[in-house]
């Protein structure tokens, strides 16, 4: 996965006029953190979008594939931590909006 920031996109990305980049962030509210059920919801939602979608915890964290439940779970994101979301591709904007909204709704916890 590319670690390049959006504004200095490499030649492959800039060659495709449809590639857009979007970013967003939201705070995890569940007291247990990003546990199994929200992690699965998040990856399922990410998979419905035609874009590479990545998340990380903290400004310096490592970006991981938001479509991989294993990678998302290994973030071990705790309660009150901020999740940063970024996406690249045809549906990048929608993907980021949808994921941020899901986190803000506390994953529709019962």
């Amino acid at each position: 996965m590319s670690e390049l920031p959006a504004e200095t996109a490499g030649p492959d990305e800039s060659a495709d006029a449809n590639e857009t980049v979007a970013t967003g962030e939201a705070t995890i509210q569940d007291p247990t953190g990003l546990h199994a059920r929200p992690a699965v919801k998040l990856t399922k939602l990410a998979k419905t979008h035609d874009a590479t979608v990545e998340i990380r915890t903290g400004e310096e964290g490592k970006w991981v594939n938001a479509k991989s439940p294993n990678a998302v779970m290994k973030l071990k994101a705790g309660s009150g931590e901020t999740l940063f979301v970024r996406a690249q591709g045809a549906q990048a904007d929608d993907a980021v909006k949808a994921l941020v909204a899901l986190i803000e709704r506390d994953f529709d916890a019962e």
Partner: protein
Amino acid sequence: MIETSGERILSGVAASDGLVVGRAVRLASAAELQRTAGSPEEERSVLAGAITRATEQLEALAGAQDETGAEILEFQTALLEDEDLLAPVYAAVEAGQPADLAWIRIIDGEVTEYREGEDDYFKARADDLLDLKERVLAALHGKETAQVKLDGDIIIARDLTPSRFLELDWSLYRGVAICGGSPTSHVAILARARGIPLVVGLEDAPETLVAACPAVLDAESGRLILAPTTETLEEIGRRLRARDADDAAAQSLLGEAAVTAQGERIEILINADDPRVLAEVPVANCDGIGLTRTEFLFSDGALPDEQKQYEVYRDLMTWAAGRPVIIRTLDAGGDKPIPGVTVDDESNPFLGLRGVRLSLLKPEVMKLQLRALARAASLGPLKIMIPMVTVPEEVEAVRALLEAALSELAAQGVAHARPQLGMMVEVPAAALAAERFKVDFFSIGSNDLIQYTTACARDNAAVTGLADAKNPAVLELIRRTVEAAARMGVEVSLCGDMASDPNAIPDLLDCGLRRLSVAPAQVGRVKLAVRRYD
């Protein structure tokens, strides 16, 4: 076949209470390597087929589970659809490894990563990967975990994964003993929730047990007895009859006052972790509420407003019908993070900002709670309890906030009353010097007092054995607190798990305690233990 004359006793740790006489049978593990590599195409196809079958099994199983079970299985199913997780397995197969070896290596690597770090929730996800590892291996080796009735009713296994636990038909089996595991593992939680006796941490049981044989699963003391002698069976039979009699006796004592054999009256209050459970508890069974945890009010992200809090406290007062109600101010922190209240990234949360330490950093949150409590105090004997007090200044700071809240309510003409103000004794510094604190009552929080006295974190399964409630130092701190309260002329009670354990009741009464706050489900058993004390 084990010789029937040779009784063998294997020791472990009781993780879910019970006593079973039956027939032990081994549940085989699929986790051994069996394949030699075929062509890469062959191995890839075998692996893909096994993953598909494992997915189908998990989905079928999830349909029949409650929420806890379903959540565990849902995560495992999602992992089998995780391309990032599977890609290196397929790559290893392409490079010539047998499918089972490739699968084991990759999953074991992931398990190691999950086990790193501090957070027990995420550490425990390693169990889910091990569970999945076993299921896919079973499919690879053609040993599906289909429902075949084993030749016995006490299951012995090297380890038992949560999904296999859920898969077993518990109308056919009556108990489990496993070599691995801990009392805090997922399987232990599932077993307790379902009332299935479980012993964990047994040494070498599967090797010992070659064929099914008569056995006793003693999940009271944590033992498995293989091929028990007639004498053992007679003794176990007596204990079984005693258990049945105890259950009946405890049931019959529910509505009675707790009185020792000498005729001394002991007050039994209940812990109201969640006021919703009170609907099923007749108030006549107890002498009031000895602990109300208010964290549940703060668990949904937003801080509750004064009116919402007041209504909850009012309902407690109504339920108690004139009996005392102790309500603890917000006790966040430690293992109970609350967004917007607790502090993140403490290296050692149990020794950090928790309980009153945190409340005094957020005085506006605490004052709002004190206002709601003072309003509800107009309805009956409500008592406010401060958690995690270490020094008298903390009590005085809360008292100042309470005075401010009372003045505000008076100025606004809102109905209220002055509640008693007391504290939990759970920090050894408070237990050793209780007379320094000007309070109306003490309540001993044994869970944290044990943790801090024995230096054993409550969330660390590896030190469960050391965190002994009956450690003489713990009992000495309880005794000193009781004696200090007597000299001061204030009430003292104990509201930790220790008060709910019938085996600990004689020790607590020996320390001089005459007021205990217990889990609602334990009221009968505790009253029975009190009755037997002389």
